[in-house]
């Protein structure tokens, strides 16, 4: 099953709760970029590994994450 995750990165506070709960471990903190709030937001490069389980979205305190699944 393939999933697709979108981040509203300007709302991200870089708390890494999503990084901690992601089963395939594909979410990481982008330390080369700073968002409008002044935090390093999270990012996914290997989206093809996403299963669309939405663990990240459930744990995100700031409703940054939208998850889609085929």
């Amino acid at each position, binding site marked *: 099953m393939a999933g697709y995750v979108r981040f509203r990165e300007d709302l991200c*506070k870089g708390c*890494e709760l999503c*990084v901690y709960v992601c089963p395939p471990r594909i979410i990481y903190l982008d330390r080369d970029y700073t968002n409008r709030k002044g*935090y390093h937001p999270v990012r996914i490069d290997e989206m093809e590994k996403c299963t669309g*389980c939405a663990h990240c979205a459930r744990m*995100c*305190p*700031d*409703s940054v994450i939208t*998850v889609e699944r085929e």
Partner: protein
Amino acid sequence: MAIVYQKTKGLTDAELHYCPGCTHGIVHKLVGETLEELDVLGKAVGVAPVGCAVFAYDYFNCDMQEAAHGRAPAVATGIKRVLPQHVVFTYQGDGDLAAIGIAEAVHSAMRGEKITVIFVNNAIYGMTGGQMAPTTLVGQKATTAPLGRDPGHYGSPIRMSEMLATIDGAAYIERVMVTTPASVMKAKRSIKKAFELQIAGLGFTMIEVLSTCPTNWGLTPVESLEWVKENMLPVFPLGVYRDVTKEEA
């Protein structure tokens, strides 16, 4: 592609002011999702506390009322009695509910007020800078207990769920946590049940949510989740402490 998770309509577009990784945001989402799923956003009234969640009135997408410190259950009592068809809830922290507002919480339960209390317990005063709360663990450091809470001097942490479960007017009392996706989903089912029992008119309902305070605990958000499991769970065990629907059956 179908959307499997998106921001609930139960919350407004306002950006939360909470510290990074604070689980207040998760609990807000669960309450918002519950109100949306029960289709009661149009007739829900929330009462905001004093403390970290004081701006909750900007975040929930329903009518909101701010209360004086600890008085949210008293204000909710008035709202529910005037508008009995509405769904009324309070959202309170441990400093608000278990310290200054303990009388209002206990007496609302005693009167069997048909409201739902969301009690967010993170064992410390967050907004004011990490002072000792009634729920602070023995040995836990706080700005007003720099050597850790000494039970001989300050007493031991108060367990609100166990205490309120002894009151006849309480219909549903449960303690949950939000440290993993599974426990978050469990917490949501519990919050939903509490609202359903309120709508059924069975009495006072409270869900205590073990929460984190990474800033004042001096831990990262992820370390804080582990801290809840290792240190808070033995003192504040999860479970249903009162459920009148089970007792009647």
